[in-house]
């Protein structure tokens, strides 16, 4: 009686060894490293790895180890001086195509890395860093698309020689005609321009209203989010942060997590900035249709500018900050379409003035009828106006900014514009000292809590208590193993979940052992007592764990941030503890006591 078949013992052993293997990467410390990731998200190969190593060796330092990890190049160094020398050298050469970050990396032996294993990833509250939640202003995304429609309809109706006036208000375009006779023609022009828009006849019989269909609005919103994600990734890549995370959350939000970043102030500007440029000709007559007056920034004079945009921020493929004749300047490179337009414009407008307009959105809070509301205001300012002295196309420069503005604008133009403005609604920064404190305190709590429970169990249940302790320890290994395997971030609440699991995981064994004691008291023979103790306690254990699991799953599903971290470790702990406390302890009990003649039980 009380013998597990050999295969079951072997299975328990195999599972335990798998757990140990998965948890193994966590025992090695960290070491200084440089991480290089492709800006376009591509994976590096061996040849590129060797190229990077050559570059670093050219700077007089040699990495202790260099390898590919998830398509990124990782180089480990024995000193932080070597690390920064290598980082600087690489950044100098590869700033355009790669994100070079100084970081810490686990010091895994080759054979452990060979299994594709890595240690638990630590959450921002443990490693320090910045978390930002951004909201995308969808109204502005729709507005800007509607403005393009407005201009398009206007152009097409003029080309068709239909007298009209186009207005855009509250995401609705109204086309007013002089009489009802042009209605059909106007409608077909609009529908030809875009068959998906919703066109309706106005009440007065001589106007049309046009708005975007629901599908179009949704497409536009998705486009805005996707475009913003790309832009934000590009911007974040310029910061040299290892393993940055830029992720969509829900319908209109974006989460940015930057481990190791300590100054949130600099970051705000780079994440939420919408600054971009537009180039327009000055309307010297001042009365061309569509022309409008723009204010100048600082001492710059206001101008009336033409409606047509020669080139705008999204056609800029490169931008560098520097100085031109002692003035801060941004050197701009346009794409081929923008370059072509610029060439045509400068050829046709020699000796006429052209303006660079700096555009930025800001969100403003105001109170209407006692309710706080927010609106986006668009600031458009001329930063310089210059007379076209010669023909140019792709490359030129603009001035009129402070050195800091020039640097930020160049970065933003390089990374691409946001399709819609974003606003920060939540940000949290954890300094590195607090992160380390949290790790130390959390692990200390686990250690002491674990020791207390282990001691209690041995004193209270003697040999059986010791067996429960072995199970408890393997349970910890399994939790660490699963966290490492799933690469779920371990947070401080996550550590609290592990601590709680340590206290609660012995419950299954308490149930079993109390049951065995009851049986022994009732005069049952030891072997039978063991067997029925395990059997009878099973349904209680399962019920009790499933109910806790329900609470944990709800927490995981509905929880955010810290709650999720707690829910993950609690769920893992419940599941692994069922295995270790029931199957694990039974295996040991069977090995120790099974099939023998016993007069009493050490319980």
């Amino acid at each position, binding site marked *: 009686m009380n013998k597990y078949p050999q295969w079951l013992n072997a299975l328990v052993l195999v599972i335990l060894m798998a757990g140990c293997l998965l948890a193994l990467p966590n025992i090695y410390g960290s070491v200084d490293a440089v991480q290089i990731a492709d800006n376009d998200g591509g994976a590096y190969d061996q040849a590129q790895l060797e190229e990077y190593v050559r570059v670093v060796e050219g700077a007089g330092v040699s990495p202790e180890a260099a390898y590919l990890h998830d398509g990124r190049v990782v180089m480990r160094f024995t000193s932080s001086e070597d690390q920064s020398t290598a980082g600087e050298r690489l950044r100098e050469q590869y700033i355009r195509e790669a994100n070079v970050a100084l970081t810490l990396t686990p010091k895994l032996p080759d054979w452990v890395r060979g299994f594709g294993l890595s240690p638990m990833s630590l959450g921002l509250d443990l490693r320090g860093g910045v978390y930002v939640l951004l909201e995308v202003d969808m109204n502005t995304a729709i507005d800007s698309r509607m403005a393009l429609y407005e201009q398009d309809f206007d152009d097409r109706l003029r080309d068709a020689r239909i007298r009209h006036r186009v207005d855009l208000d509250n995401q609705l375009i109204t086309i007013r005609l002089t009489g009802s006779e042009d209605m059909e023609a106007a409608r077909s022009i609009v529908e030809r321009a875009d068959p998906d828009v919703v066109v309706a006849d106005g009440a007065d019989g001589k106007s049309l209203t046009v708005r975007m269909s629901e599908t179009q609005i949704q497409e536009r919103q998705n486009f805005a989010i996707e475009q913003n994600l790309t832009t934000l990734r590009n911007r974040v890549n310029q910061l040299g942060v290892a393993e940055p995370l830029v992720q969509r959350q829900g319908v209109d939000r974006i989460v940015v997590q930057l481990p190791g970043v*300590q100054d*949130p*102030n600099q970051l705000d*500007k780079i994440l939420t900035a919408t600054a971009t440029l537009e180039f327009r000709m000055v309307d010297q007559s001042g009365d061309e249709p569509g022309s409008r007056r723009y204010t100048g920034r600082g001492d710059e004079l206001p101008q009336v500018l033409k409606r047509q945009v020669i080139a705008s921020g999204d056609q800029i493929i490169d931008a560098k900050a520097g100085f031109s004749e002692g003035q801060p300047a941004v050197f701009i490179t346009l794409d081929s379409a923008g370059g072509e337009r610029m060439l045509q414009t400068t050829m046709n407008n020699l000796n006429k003035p052209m303006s660079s307009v700096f555009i930025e959105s800001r969100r403003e*809070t105001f109170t209407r009828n006692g309710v*706080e509301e927010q609106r986006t205001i668009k600031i458009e300012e001329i930063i310089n106006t210059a007379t076209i002295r010669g023909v140019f196309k792709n490359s030129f420069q603009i001035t009129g900014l402070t050195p800091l503005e020039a640097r930020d604008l160049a970065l933003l133009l390089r990374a691409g514009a946001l399709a819609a403005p974003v606003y*920060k*609604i*939540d*940000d*949290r*920064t*954890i*300094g590195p*000292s*607090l992160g380390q404190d949290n790790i130390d*305190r*959390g692990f200390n*709590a686990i250690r*002491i*809590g674990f020791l*207390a*429970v282990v001691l*209690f169990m041995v*004193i*209270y249940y003697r040999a059986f208590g010791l067996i429960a302790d072995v199970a408890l320890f393997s349970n910890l290994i399994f939790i660490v193993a699963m966290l490492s395997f799933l690469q779920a971030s371990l947070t401080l*609440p996550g*550590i*609290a979940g592990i*601590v*709680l699991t*340590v*206290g*609660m995981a*012995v*419950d299954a064994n*308490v*149930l079993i052992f*109390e049951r065995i*004691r009851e049986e022994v008291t009732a005069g049952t023979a030891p072997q039978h007592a063991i067997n029925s103790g395990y059997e009878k306690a099973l*349904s*209680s254990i399962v*019920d*009790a*764990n499933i*109910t*806790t699991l*329900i*609470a*944990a799953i*709800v*927490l995981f*599903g*509905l*929880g*955010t*941030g*810290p*709650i999720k971290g*707690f829910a993950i470790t609690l769920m893992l702990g419940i599941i692994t503890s069922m295995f270790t406390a029931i199957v694990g302890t039974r295996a040991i009990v069977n090995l120790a006591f099974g099939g023998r003649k016993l007069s009493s039980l050490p319980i």
Partner: protein
Amino acid sequence: MKLINKTNIDFLGPKRRKIALAVSAVLVIVSLASLATRGLEFGIDFTGGILLEVGYPQAANLDQIRNNLGAAGFTDAQVQKFGSDTDVLVRLPPQPNKNATEVRQQLQETLQAGGETIDLRRVENVSAQVGTELAERGALAMVVALMLIFVYVMIRFQWKFSAGAVAALAHDAIVTVGFFSIFGLPFDLTVVAALLAVIGYSLNDTVVAFDRIRENFFALRGVSAEEAMNVSINEMLARTLITGLTTLLVLGALLTLGGESIAPFSIALIVGIIIGTYSSIYTASATALALDVNAQDLIEPIKDPSLIDDLP
């Protein structure tokens, strides 16, 4: 070793039940009254606002800091020590008409006004909108968890047990939240997580007791429901107390060693587990008894009447 030998305490006698009912009623009423009058010390997670945790090189002078902040226009700033003498927590309500980044920079400068170099340990900047959302989601999580648990216990046992279990859980949650209200402890997102863990734990206790009650309903024939339940609770007493003890051991470690930011979480769990242990002994079973639970409730009704004809 044995802490508890076989006991035969009359937990569920009519008199005891009345006392327990009175105690629970008082606890719940006091909690609700405090919640209604004093409310909760909601953390920045729920209210929105700006929070800075800074470390000073030596013990910080709170009055000085308050004066500096007041002079800089932050008259509504809360300043308190956090965990140690050198750690200071500064909290501001949401500043709707100001740029959050500028406010934060200004705060930082003000805190360093004395010329000290401070260690910026933590900055949180939550908009009121996100705060409201987090609060709503937390409340939703509680309600959903209670509903799912009700359904699970109903499937595994019967609705009278379900009602007993959920009554016990609601009791635990209300008293734990009431404790936070009465003592003015900070109520943040981690406390919501702790409450759900308390619900899970307390339920764990209750379900284990119910399991034994079900077993004894059949094992002990000719015995009243009250007596069968009482025997069950006595039989499970050692287990209930030992598991409570081991859990409190680790939570004690977490409270003393885990640091200030996890302390509200630990306190919520400690209070919740003590209350939960009491309620799984009294509230849950007493509620089921009040609903006149008996062995019949647990016998599966025969669904297909044609089967009866086949019986001899």
